[in-house]
């Protein structure tokens, strides 16, 4: 285990990414304390200012761990597998558990270094008074360490199953989003009702570290609209996290064996060669059978777009159709439940659920689809071949952007039936729905252009995917930290200013979702997104021209 740990730590700390993360955390902590340090010779005996700094510090630490830690374990095993060094490790006298725990310990080691970088800021909070060392500060660090181990275990488990580092990144960040954010959503909408689903939703949210962190920061429960809450959210979270870590550790350790490599090469069987019965079954199962023999690319069609549709690993058409069907069914079912009065939700709540669902899909899917558009070509050597074809930079860029745009359009259209039913129930919300749809379309376009631009700056898809997720999550989830601190330390104007960049908050405010209805974010948000999209598009065009130009 020692050898693995040493090697992992060495290779981890040598990366520019690790240096950037450490420098970023150190600078962020410095700014945080400098901004909130008492000015003048006044002493705040109540410790209000200190608590405000501590709240910010706690959320920033949580965001840093959630956004930055998963990227390292997620690529760890799959990259070794690709580089064939995993075979060497498994062939050595090291046991699979030694390999696994070496990698997990390296992740933890990195987090410990990050935490040490935050100690001066934490000490400053404590020195200002009002913060309990044993009741708040140390438990917060304990939660962060457990969360880091949990995310490390999750990343390693995904990494042991993934085929490529970028798919590992996508799945890991998707799982992290579900774990940290989505587990709390059912409770937000079901609280106050008496049903087994509501009880399940109540306990489900403690899988997320957010309620525990909020408890430690003195913010109580997230999304809680009524009184009440868990007695011990910190302890509940720690127990669930440890349990999850143990299960994932067992699963991953068992996976780390030569069986990982014991698979034959695909013989390329096509559906056309199968029996009639199998062909009929596959037609129903897949709708668009991925294994059928495809016809030649037609005239007037952008070849790059078709190539992207056919070669992408993530978001292939048969899966997208299933996703779209699921979205359509869920959005219709939600609206139908309200119509029949079987759920005691207003149109605003239903709209809120649909908006969150769509935004989550956009944020989760877009980087997965677009972050590899350019970096994937650079990584595989395909870019050189594309440059050798007579296709212009514009044709290549159009084909790539269109391939993602059509997919996103399909996903957005899937939830429209829900909105239509909403308008049919209450025609007064038609203007709100129109504004939400505009917000969603703008968000989708912005996400596509942002991820593709990020992609053009990287030579590895996994790095581009992480960078895209981090930027999008900072915009869509990071700015929500201001909303969480809407009573203190942030005033209404500050929160509104921060949320103006957030398309999710803008859509939620339009649909009058509780908690967001008081902010006026439209049309400022549209202008911001529109301007950023145009600027990014210009930057992207420039990058493509540079990449296409002779060396």
């Amino acid at each position, binding site marked *: 285990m020692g050898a693995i740990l040493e090697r992992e730590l060495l290779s981890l700390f040598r990366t520019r990414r690790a240096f950037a993360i450490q420098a970023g955390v150190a600078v962020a902590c410095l700014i945080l304390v400098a901004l909130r340090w008492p000015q003048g010779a006044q002493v705040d005996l109540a410790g209000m200012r200190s608590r405000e700094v501590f709240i910010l510090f706690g959320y920033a630490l949580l965001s840093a761990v959630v956004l930055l830690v998963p990227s390292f374990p997620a690529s760890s095993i799959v990259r070794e597998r690709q580089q064939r060094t995993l075979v060497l490790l498994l062939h050595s006298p090291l046991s699979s558990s030694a390999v696994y725990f070496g990698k997990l310990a390296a992740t933890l080691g990195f987090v410990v270094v990050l935490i040490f970088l935050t100690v001066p800021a934490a000490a400053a909070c404590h020195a200002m008074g009002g913060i309990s060392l044993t009741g708040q500060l140390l438990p917060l660090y304990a939660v962060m360490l457990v969360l880091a181990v949990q995310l490390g275990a999750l990343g390693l488990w995904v990494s042991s199953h993934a085929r*490529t580092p970028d798919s590992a990144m996508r799945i890991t960040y998707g799982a992290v989003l579900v774990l940290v954010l989505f587990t709390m959503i059912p409770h937000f909408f079901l609280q106050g009702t008496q049903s087994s689903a509501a009880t399940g939703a109540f306990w489900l949210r403690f899988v997320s570290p957010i309620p525990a962190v909020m408890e430690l920061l003195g913010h109580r429960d997230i999304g809680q609209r009524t009184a009440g809450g868990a007695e011990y959210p910190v302890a509940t979270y720690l127990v669930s996290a440890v349990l999850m870590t143990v299960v994932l550790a067992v699963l991953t350790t068992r996976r780390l064996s030569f069986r990982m490599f014991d698979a034959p*090469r*695909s*013989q*390329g*069987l*096509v559906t056309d*060669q199968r029996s009639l019965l199998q062909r009929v079954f596959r037609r129903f199962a897949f709708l668009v059978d*991925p294994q059928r*023999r*495809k016809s*030649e*690319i*037609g*005239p007037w*069609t952008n*070849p*790059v777009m*078709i*190539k992207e549709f*056919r*070669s*992408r*690993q993530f978001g*292939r058409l048969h899966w997208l159709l299933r996703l779209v069907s699921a979205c359509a069914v869920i959005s219709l079912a939600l609206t139908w439940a309200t119509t029949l009065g079987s759920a005691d939700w207003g149109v605003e709540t239903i709209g809120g659920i649909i908006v969150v669902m769509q935004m989550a899909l956009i944020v989760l899917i877009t980087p997965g689809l677009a972050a590899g558009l350019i970096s994937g070509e650079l990584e*595989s*050597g*395909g*870019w*050189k*071949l*594309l*440059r*050798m*074809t*007579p*296709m212009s930079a514009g044709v290549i860029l159009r084909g790539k952007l269109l391939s993602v745009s059509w997919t996103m359009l399909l996903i957005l259209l899937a939830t429209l039936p829900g909105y239509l039913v909403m308008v049919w129930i209450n025609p007064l919300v038609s203007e709100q729905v129109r504004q939400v749809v505009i917000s969603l379309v703008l968000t989708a376009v912005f996400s596509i252009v942002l991820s593709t631009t990020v992609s053009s700056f990287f030579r590895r898809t996994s790095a581009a995917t992480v960078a895209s997720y981090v930027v999008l999550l900072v915009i869509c989830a990071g700015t929500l930290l201001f909303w969480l601190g809407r009573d203190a330390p942030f005033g209404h104007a500050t929160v509104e200013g921060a949320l103006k960049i957030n398309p999710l908050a803008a859509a939620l405010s339009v649909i009058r979702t509780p908690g967001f209805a008081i902010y006026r974010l439209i049309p400022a948000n549209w202008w911001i997104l529109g301007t950023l999209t145009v600027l990014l598009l210009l930057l992207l065009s420039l990058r493509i021209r540079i990449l296409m130009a*002779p*060396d």
Partner: protein
Amino acid sequence: MTTTSDRVVVIEHLTKRFGEFTAVEDLSLTVHRGQILGFIGPNGAGKTTTISVLVGLARPTSGSASIAGADCSRETHRIKQLVGYMPDVFGSYDNMRVREYLDFFGAAYGIARTERRKRIQEVLEITNAEWMQDRFVESLSHGMKQRIGIARTLLHDPEVVILDEPANGLDPSARIEMREILLRLAENGKTLIVTSHILPELARICNQVAIITHGRLRAAGTLEEIMARVSQERTIEIQLSSGAPLEEAVRLVTDFSGNPDAVHPSEAESMVRLRTNRSEEDLGSLLKTLVSGGVPVTQFREVAADLEDAFLSVTATPVSD
């Protein structure tokens, strides 16, 4: 006899610098229609940089390069139609079958649908890869990928085919297949530029060779011309019967040569090797001397110099400023 119109690839005083580093310096080279040029040199010699300039992926710092009259840096669109280029990295796409992969590149080259279908079939036949058409590209072995790479290169029926290390990493049978494919292409009138480290392979198929080291062209011409230029001496192997007096044989051969450094005895092989530029008659007298001196000679033969010798001879000579 070749004419100016036969000159397909013309490189004149090509220099390419990357900042302070000079990758290619004052390189001039001509390849005629239907020829196979073996472009050889050690790693980092400047082969790939030269090729990048030829295919329009890099601009020369000075000098010029043209293919079939099209300037490689100014008429890149024409170059793309004239040249089929297979880089040393395959450039595969996931989840794509071989036929889809070729179809994409055919469409990228603007080949019409019906024509493309026909052309894919043809290039798969040329490269003996028809049976792979439903296989996923990423699941192919290295040798199979190289064949598909050549098929992709030929899709738009280019006049010149440039292959960067096509035999790299191939097993012997795959190398033989590759050699046959390249010879077939030359028979069909294609002009080929092939870089390789596997010199015996090149020696078998190339009718022109260019040796480059440190960015400079060190020798160019037919294999025979290069041999004549770089190797004025011949190697003679004198095989003795086992247990023969090797010292006596070495003494007699050294007396004949007059240069002890040119005589290389091998006790393990019972053999004496001699580097010499003496005539056939002189060598005949050496054999006579050995036999009459009681040395039991079982074989007396000249070792044919090959491309490897020429390459080593050229690369061993320091570059003059």
